């Protein structure tokens, strides 16, 4: 059946990221903190070096703030509130640029790093002079794929109110939840995660004009819920991540993509740009092998992993920003954004440049 082509589509108007000022290489954070924390873990340095991360940004300096040991979750969230207001606010401000702020009707954001009420979205909307009637939606704690529910919310909002703009933001300050548990799984996690914020402003445009979000697809692999988690503890939020996750994703990706692409009459061979959440090098390698993509086809994902680390929900937006900045996608080319997280949940959006 030929899909009905809508007259207008959710369209990217701008995208902008922001990062905290502190940047550390893998060697600097290892020598300054992890070498001591993980001294009992066999091959800890090699595990951290093998993450594919070269450097990351940090909302605080864990070498200083966590040197004396653990910290309560409340103290960590206070830092989230302070740093988040600054960095998330900078990202939103840059994305809005010269756009008419009176047309912003909705603001959707996500984070897995901290919670407060009122949230960062309210304070940023106020600071930037956005309408007091703005509709705010906060997507909390879903995991690294959470930019997708944010984008979907924005897509729905734009479809319902095509004259309005929608802010879609993902912000992560994962370093606020570092802890010193000497476990190989935690070494991998601490070697991967970094901090960043990224904001998309979405509007509506006639079909074929601009970078457009065509459709999404989601799958929950219900039986795999134990493979990944993000839980609250008294001394911070803590992740568990099975080393078998990349293999599960690789075994399911072909069928998943068919469900995303077939309704548009497309298949994987039609996709020029692969914007895959770089959860870790094994995820990119496993999916690349399964989809028969060499490393150059996922250049932006590898670049973001190297220069930012895994920034949770923010990461796939950083990949989109990087594709637009450096890969020069041509009008009409297709891209697939994919993300993964607890559930296991697999998310995707089909984009046309």
């Amino acid at each position, binding site marked *: 059946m030929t899909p009905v082509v809508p007259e207008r589509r959710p369209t990217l108007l701008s995208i902008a990221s922001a990062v905290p000022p502190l940047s550390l290489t893998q060697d600097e954070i290892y020598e300054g903190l992890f070498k001591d924390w993980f001294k009992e873990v*066999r*091959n800890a340095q090699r*595990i951290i070096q*093998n993450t594919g991360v070269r450097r990351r940004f940090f909302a605080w300096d864990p070498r200083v703030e966590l040197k004396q040991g653990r910290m309560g979750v409340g103290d960590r969230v206070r830092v989230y509130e302070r740093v988040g207001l600054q960095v998330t606010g900078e990202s939103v401000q840059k994305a809005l640029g010269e756009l008419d702020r009176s047309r912003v009707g909705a603001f959707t954001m996500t984070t897995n790093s901290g919670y407060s009420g009122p949230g960062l979205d309210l304070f940023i909307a106020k600071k930037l002079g956005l309408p007091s009637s703005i509709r705010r939606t906060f997507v909390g704690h879903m995991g690294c794929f959470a930019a997708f529910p944010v984008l979907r919310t924005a897509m729905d909002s734009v479809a319902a109110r095509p004259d309005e703009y929608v802010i879609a933001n993902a912000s992560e300050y994962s370093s606020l939840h570092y802890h010193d548990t000497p476990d*190989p799984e935690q070494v*991998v996690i601490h070697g991967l995660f970094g901090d960043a914020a990224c904001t998309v402003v979405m509007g509506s445009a006639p079909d074929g004009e601009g970078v457009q979000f065509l459709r999404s697809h989601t799958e929950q692999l219900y*039986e*795999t819920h*134990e*493979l990944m988690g993000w839980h609250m503890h008294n001394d911070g939020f803590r992740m568990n991540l*099975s*080393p*078998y996750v*990349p*293999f*599960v994703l690789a*075994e*399911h990706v072909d069928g998943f993509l068919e469900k995303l692409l077939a309704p548009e009459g497309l298949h994987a061979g039609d996709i020029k740009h692969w914007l895959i959440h770089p959860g*870790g090098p*094994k995820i990119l*390698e*496993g999916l690349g092998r399964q989809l028969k993509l060499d490393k150059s086809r996922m250049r932006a994902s590898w670049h973001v992993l190297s220069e930012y680390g895994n920034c949770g929900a923010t990461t796939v937006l950083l990949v989109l920003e990087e594709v637009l900045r450096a890969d020069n996608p041509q009008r009409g080319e297709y891209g697939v954004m994919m993300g993964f997280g607890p559930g296991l949940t697999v998310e995707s959006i089909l984009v046309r440049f």
Partner: protein
Amino acid sequence: MHRQEILDHVRNIILATHTGLFPDDVSEFASMTYDLGMDSFHLESMISRLKDEVANIEFTPWYIKASRRGHDTVGSLVDFIDERQPRSLECGETRGEAAFTDGLEPRDSEAA
């Protein structure tokens, strides 16, 4: 392919992919991640070889069980393969067994 042959094959693959181990380390009861210290790079090499050499097996049900701490034992993987191996392997009539047998030589883990 009998269970003992599968066990020998899996043990050989583990020893080839994680060269720091001694044969006696790789018991049926050893957890690959917690006892043998296999990281994602070792696991990838092992799974890749199993995928190459044990065709048409989806490992997700084993990954789910294996992800519980300490449950990814050598024996559990052998049992899984034993239960799900294609019938042709048992009959020894296709390239499946040849690949299985050919794969017994250890390989350099860095090349895997």
